[in-house]
């Protein structure tokens, strides 16, 4: 464990804490960007270069920008203000998080030593090695991810369509709606 490791760890934790506590949503979002960048650096340290790049490009570059964009779009920067109907939620959340961490940490304490040949096998996590795996054994999930992204696009379009499409509605359908209202209410 080097100084670098400690530094990155501190950065990660600090930015994460900032992301979940800062009152201003834009600040929190920025903290999260920082966290993601730090994480990318950690990936490099973990022999996962391609992952690190992707992290920077997709996460920090695209996803978080999207987030910040939405935050600003919605003028919702000062979101966590106003009366809180669940004031006791914060300590409970903290306690639950702490317990979760402790349980996981306890589980990790039973881990064995690192495989001495690990970094050789990982080959630095370069695209070439990773690509062989992704388009080899992982072809199926990758294809599925394509479907997923397609489905997500459709879903997102459905969600943000601002107006109800004006279609010609059959008269008997309208009559039925009226009927339901009459009898139901």
């Amino acid at each position, binding site marked *: 464990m080097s100084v670098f490791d400690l530094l990155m760890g501190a950065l990660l934790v600090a930015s994460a804490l900032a992301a979940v506590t800062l009152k201003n949503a834009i600040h929190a979002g920025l903290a999260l960007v920082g966290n993601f960048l730090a994480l990318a650096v950690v990936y490099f340290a973990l022999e996962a270069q391609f992952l690190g790049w992707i992290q920077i490009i997709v996460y920090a570059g695209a996803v978080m920008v999207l987030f910040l964009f939405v935050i600003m779009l919605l003028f919702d920067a000062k979101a966590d203000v106003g009366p809180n*109907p669940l004031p006791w*939620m914060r300590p409970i*959340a903290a306690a*639950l998080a702490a*317990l979760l961490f402790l349980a*996981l940490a*306890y589980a990790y304490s039973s881990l064995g030593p690192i495989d001495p040949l690990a970094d050789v096998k990982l080959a630095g996590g370069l695209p070439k090695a990773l690509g062989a795996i992704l388009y080899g054994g992982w072809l199926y999930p990758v294809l599925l991810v394509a479907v997923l992204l397609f489905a997500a696009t459709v879903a997102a379009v459905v969600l943000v369509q601002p107006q109800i499409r004006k279609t010609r509605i059959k008269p008997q359908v309208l009559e039925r709606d009226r009927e339901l209202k009459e009898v139901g209410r």
Partner: protein
Amino acid sequence: MLLILIILLPLLGFAYLGLFGKSLKEPQPGILASALTGISFLLVLWGVLSGGASWQIKDWLPGIPFSLLLDHLSGYMGLVVTGIGFLIHVYAIGYMHGDEGFSRFFAYLNFFIAMMMTLVLAGSYPVMFIGWEGVGLASFLLIGFWYTVKKNADSARKAFITNRIGDLGFLLGMALLYGSFGTLSIPELRSAINGSYVLPMGLSLAGLLLFVGAVGKSAQVPLMVWLPDAMAGPTPVSALIHAATMVTAGVYLIARSSFLYVNLQDVSYIIALVGITTAAYGALSALGQWDIKKIVAYSTISQLGYMFLAVGVGAYWIAIFHVMTHAFYKALLFLASGSVIHSLDGEQDIRKMGGLKKYLPRTNLHGLAGALSLAGFPLLAGFWSKDAIITATLNYPFGGTGFYVAGLTVALLTAIYAMRWYALVFLGEYKGEGRPHESPAVMTVPNDVLALGAVFAGLLALPKPLWNLVEPYLAPALAHVEVHEMSLALEWGLITLSAVVALVGLYLGYAAFTRWALPKWYQTFQTWSEKAFYVDLVYNTLIVNPLKELAVLLDWLDKIFDSGYLLLASSSKWLAEQLSWVQAGYVRVYGALMALGLVVLLVWGVLR
């Protein structure tokens, strides 16, 4: 087949009259019913003369045959039932004249005869029980014949329910016998009991339970309360059912089971005690009655007590003998009373009678014959049979003398109330209104026959050394009790004594109720006696009303139970409502609860 015919004929009469009787004109139903009963009588007679018969369906119920048996005992009893029954049927044609329920009445009567013959001819206890309940039903129907009067309907119900108490005893007794011997056929039981050296435990209980049945049917203490009320029925019914035949079924049951009771000294003793108590109670209650029929009714209770005394002390044939003589004179008394009531257009209070001798000469003779026979006037039927009973008690090893003295005392009372009845109705001056008229021949002729019986029937069984036809005839069907033969001198001495007692009683009764001014204590006694010593009141207060309350209480308890279950249901609903605050709609709470679930799972799964 003969046997089933004996039962079936009246039953068919019942069915026919019940379904189509309305379309028949008076007196056709009466004639039909009487004829059928008469044919039954002839069939019984034929059966008796041809030496008995038996008939059965095997395994009518599993292990229990439907068996009928005509032996000497049932033949004898059957002759009494159908014979007296026939006479009363005939009488009723006159008595029920003009009643709108004429055909219904004869339907019921025929039904009664059928059931009574089932009872008598039964070769197994369940069959007897069919008849037993059947006559109870007939009694219910006939007591409540004029059901539009609430009192009559109430009396009918009371009779049935009281009888049911006894019937429960009968049922349980049968269950016990079946449990011990695996059969309920009377001949089989008889051979089983006679053949076994060691009697099963609980046999006494069986005997006692059967006796409880007899107590109910024969209106013995403490189940006697229904019989006086049963007088609500038409008088021929009182004569037939509540005097001559049905009420003696209890005696018949004990006699039929004599092979059992002869082995059960303890139970027999209880029977004798109950018998004498009932005899005394009936006689004392009869003394104070003002209703012409109630006197006879209490007298019936008393006489039935005598019969039980007889079977209790083991004198089975004498009891059966008394059944016959009693049937004659008590039927006669009832029918004579009926004739009186008929002639007075329904008047039953003897304080409004008197001097009827003049108006109703034939009936007067019938009444006199009946009363004297009941009182034990020497040489009349009642004298011989009653004397035989009282004498037999002396042979009883367990306190026979006490029974004897008590029996004699009751005989004295019997003579007094018999005379009181006769004197107040027929002697003295007529105190009522209206003009009494003698009954038609259709009513008096049967009474003539009965009167002959009441006078001469005793001659069938006379003390030694004179002839006795009844005892040897019945002997094969009854258990025999070894008794110490008493000397002829002693026997005839006792006979004389009872004759004297009867005569004294008759005189006392005649004197007291026609000439004397009665003392003050008698007035008190009169009141108590009239109310039959308030037994009804006591029963109502102690038993009937609490049971009614119990029913209400149980109903209430049931509702409590119901609401208990409802509470259970609503409490789970309550629980659900208490839980539902969790589902408050806050997504963060849901998240926290999920996290809590995960944390619990993890902490427990990892730290375990």
